[in-house]
């Protein structure tokens, strides 16, 4: 365009545009190769003092919220929600807001490097040699020539990379790529999917229509924090409360989480008793409503269930009365509730209870999420058992080259799984990390990908909205460093017939041009592509949720096990929950570190939550350092006397405890995943909620920085003042 226009003419055009405050987004088919330059080389079309907004997709978790990023003079300066995007409708969470601190993180990887792994790991010194991208692509191409020895390990986002890798693996005959993310582990997504398959015949992720329910009983689902699609579920919660008859939220979990803090009723039930409680509620409900309990629930002993949960029988009866009273009741299974040895049965019990309540496929009930408009089948992340199998294959020397992208297995996987030790047997580890995370530090080659805000891509949105959609990502700034898109690297190395990532993406989204009922339509691919960038994706106007098949859902017998009584003072149930602010990968963003935890107001560190009475019996005070010992590991962490947790349960947030990952994350707090053992439930998810730990005094004290005053909280510190 600038070739044909003189500068003077061009300024006239710009002036005319500025009068109507035009914003240059999605400038038509030609925009695909427009480059966005930093301030030092500002392109002349970038009008001084005017912001330019770009639509893209948030990569801080896999929920796929739409972002509008405000840029000025080639720099991204604020992320805002995309108001059209069906998942978040213009809203964002704290992590979405802080994504810029990832883009501008001072510790980002800036060049592709080769690392002589063993030495650097042991001495803690980096022995990196910068290489150029031609060499890097050659390294990848060489590795792909031995397809049997190749394994890709990918994160939950982005999907276009996963699609490409799957395609490549199929073509060259390599094992299928594996996806993993710690949040999926804490949400026990595989278990929920398997339960849906067993009950309804389809293993999709389920959509829980919070917005229209008038009674929600949540078994520890932290849907206001990190669960599945937190921004969408927060909107659902908000709508539930705004109904003409305000919806009621009941939370059943051992610790008063941030979500439970919003509940009208919280019962601290014993970990592992969730299935029994669900079954008991089912039995009481059915007996009172229909006079007879279906097969799924008839075997349960209500009094024993109440006893196992640590509840009064009266509490169960009151909950049943609430259920009988409600028009649109809904029961939600949380992650920790399913992370037990018999977690699959618990999930089935909770889904059966929904079937009994008759809410399947009805407003305020349970639905199958719509199939992605690209017509892809349901693909779940790997379960922990599958990850353990991967580790076994690594140990057996079957994997010659391991590619890692978008996930940090050394940090996120339980140490007891032995991933780090198994890396010794993998000759080549190639990391595509943007940040120097723990896995990248052990890699032989780091070929850094662009940051999410510098990247093209798309993400299938499977949860959070009833509209079938594909969320689109585009670079909002030019890449700052000598990084290269992993898709481009793989396209070059595998010799696929695509010129670059954009051509590949256009090829992928091409089938959407034909589809009807979309938010917009276009006659040809270039126009469609322009709109796809402008609106940050493509989605159908109509909701296409489908009803799960309820037939026989309440007639299958459940095999619910009784809960072991935990011995007081000796062992405690350890409840590990993902930090609502940091989640699995937020620790390198200083503003997320400094945002107080919603419940404890602790900043910049880890803590263990202990009931004040238990702490008193153990002779522990706030900020005392204790040693938490499990059969698989031990960590030392400061005490936070948490007033709303069962006396036989302690809790530690997950998210801190990095040994790498940049200056803001490193050597800060502890990683509770070090305590986990390789125990799985029937669906293969980690049974982390079964874990028992001992607590030992160390005599040390380490003060936690917290926003709330320590004075007067349970009398602490008052004696000195």
């Amino acid at each position, binding site marked *: 365009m600038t070739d044909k226009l003189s500068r003077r003419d061009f300024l006239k055009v710009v002036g005319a545009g500025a009068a109507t405050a035009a914003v240059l987004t999605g400038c038509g088919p030609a925009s695909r190769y427009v480059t966005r330059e930093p301030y030092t080389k500002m392109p002349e079309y970038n009008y001084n003092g005017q912001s330019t907004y770009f639509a893209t997709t948030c990569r801080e978790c896999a929920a796929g919220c739409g972002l509008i990023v405000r840029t000025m003079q080639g*720099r*991204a*300066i*604020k992320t*805002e929600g995309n108001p059209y995007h069906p998942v*978040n409708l*213009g*809203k*964002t*969470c*704290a992590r*979405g*807001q802080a994504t*810029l*601190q990832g*883009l*501008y*993180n*001072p510790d980002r990887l800036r060049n592709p490097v080769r690392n002589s792994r063993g030495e650097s790991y042991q001495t803690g010194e980096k022995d990196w040699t910068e290489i150029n991208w031609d060499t890097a692509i050659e390294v990848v191409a060489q590795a792909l020539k031995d397809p049997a020895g190749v394994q890709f390990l990918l994160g939950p986002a982005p999907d276009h990379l996963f699609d490409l890798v799957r395609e490549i693996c199929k073509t060259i005959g390599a094992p299928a790529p594996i996806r993993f993310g710690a949040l999926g582990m804490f949400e026990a997504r595989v278990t929920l999917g398997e339960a849906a398959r067993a009950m309804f015949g389809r293993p999709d992720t389920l959509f829980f229509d919070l917005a229209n329910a008038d009674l929600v009983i949540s078994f520890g689902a932290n849907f*206001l*924090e990190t669960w599945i699609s*937190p921004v969408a579920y*927060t*909107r659902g*919660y*908000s709508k539930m*409360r*705004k109904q*003409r*008859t*305000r919806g009621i939220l009941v939370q059943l979990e051992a610790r008063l989480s*941030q979500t439970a*803090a*919003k509940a*009208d009723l*919280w019962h601290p039930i014993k970990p592992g008793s969730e299935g029994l409680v669900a079954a008991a509620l089912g039995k009481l409900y059915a007996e009172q409503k229909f006079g007879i309990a279906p097969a799924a629930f008839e075997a349960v002993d209500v009094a024993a269930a109440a006893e196992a949960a640590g509840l009064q029988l009266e509490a169960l009866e009151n909950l049943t009365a609430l259920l009988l009273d409600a028009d649109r009741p809904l029961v939600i299974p949380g992650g920790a509730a399913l992370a037990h040895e018999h977690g699959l049965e618990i999930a089935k019990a909770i889904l059966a209870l929904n079937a009994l309540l008759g809410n399947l496929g009805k407003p305020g009930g349970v639905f199958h999420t719509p199939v992605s408009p690209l017509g892809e089948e349901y693909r779940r992340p790997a379960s922990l058992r599958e990850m353990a199998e991967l580790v076994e294959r690594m140990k057996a020397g079957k994997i010659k080259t391991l590619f890692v992208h978008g996930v940090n297995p050394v940090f996120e996987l339980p140490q007891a799984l032995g991933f780090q030790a198994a890396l010794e047997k993998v000759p080549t580890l190639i990391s595509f990390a943007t940040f120097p995370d723990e896995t990248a530090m052990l890699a032989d080659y780091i070929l850094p990908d662009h940051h999410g805000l510098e990247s093209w891509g798309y993400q299938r949105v499977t949860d959070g909205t009833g509209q079938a959609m594909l969320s689109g990502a585009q670079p909002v700034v030019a890449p*700052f460093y000598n990084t290269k898109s992993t898709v481009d690297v793989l396209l070059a190395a595998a010799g696929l017939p695509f010129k670059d990532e954009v051509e590949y993406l256009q090829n992928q989204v091409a089938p959407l041009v034909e589809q009807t009922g979309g938010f917009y339509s276009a006659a040809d691919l270039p126009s469609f592509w322009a709109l796809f960038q402008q609106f940050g994706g493509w989605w159908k106007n109509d909701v296409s949720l489908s009803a799960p098949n309820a037939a026989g859902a309440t007639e299958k017998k459940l095999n619910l096990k009784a809960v072991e009584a935990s011995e007081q003072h000796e062992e405690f149930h350890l409840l590990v929950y993902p930090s*609502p*602010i940091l989640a699995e990968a937020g620790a390198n963003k*200083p*503003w*997320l*570190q*400094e945002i*107080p935890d*919603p*419940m404890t*107001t602790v*900043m*910049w*560190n880890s803590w263990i939550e202990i*009931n004040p*009475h238990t702490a008193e019996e153990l002779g522990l005070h706030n900020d005392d350092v204790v040693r938490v010992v499990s059969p698989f590991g031990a960590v030392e962490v400061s005490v936070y006397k948490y*007033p*709303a947790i069962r006396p036989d349960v302690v809790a530690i947030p997950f998210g801190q405890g990095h040994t790498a990952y940049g*200056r803001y994350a490193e050597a800060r707090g502890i990683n509770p995943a070090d305590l986990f053992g390789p125990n799985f439930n029937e669906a293969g998810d980690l049974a982390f909620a079964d874990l028992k730990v001992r607590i030992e005094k160390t005599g040390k004290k380490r*003060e936690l*920085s917290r*926003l709330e005053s320590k004075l007067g*909280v349970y009398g602490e510190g008052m004696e000195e003042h």
Partner: protein
Amino acid sequence: MASLPKIPEYKAEWAEGEAGRWGIAIDMDLCTGCQACVAACSMENNVPFVGEHDAGYGRQMAWIRVERLWEGEYPEVKATPFQPVMCQQCGAAPCEAVCPVFATVHSQAEQINLQVYNRCVGTRYCANNCPYVARVFNWADYSNYPEPLANQFNPDVTVRRRGVMEKCTFCIQRIHKATDQAKAEGREVRDGEVQPACAQACPADAIVFGRLDDPESKVSKLSKDKRAIKLLEDLGTQPRVTYLKGGYHGNLG
């Protein structure tokens, strides 16, 4: 004898009317304590982070905080509803009366409480006198970020130096942008046209911002709701932030 000009006994006598111009209504039934407002505010207003040590000394710089208190003892324990607290933009602001250098003044145009950074000499009298603990002080040059973190700074907002008091401005840069735009188009600002960063981000739609002097605006309706309360209203500060207590439509379960 010529009459002397009337000298107010204290500056708060210059209080504006009851109504005010811009206001916020926060529904505590909807607020989930997710801290998205805190992050959004910090990103929009170039609020620096201070690090673990200084944060432990109560020097955290956030202009908005989400309060939560405990009630009762286990098992009858509960957390009070999350309550985001920012500068209440008092109509009769206690902070204004004590500033010796007129660094904190009331703006006639926006009818909000301003902080003039280059007048501020850091006496911290205003913070001392603020009943809402809404003011934060730059104890050090916290904004000296390692490169290239400083690229995220919003060019519409100043970066404050050591020794300066700061606080929530209701995102005055956004108010100005919208009023300028409206003026250029010869109209009034539409309700919902301006949103401060906190309201814009809020996933639960708990924060509503708008014109209090427009009886039809969402925020004026909410601030007259029967659930409406004002924080420490008894002090006569005329806060412009309204909190909605209890359940939506007044029915609690």
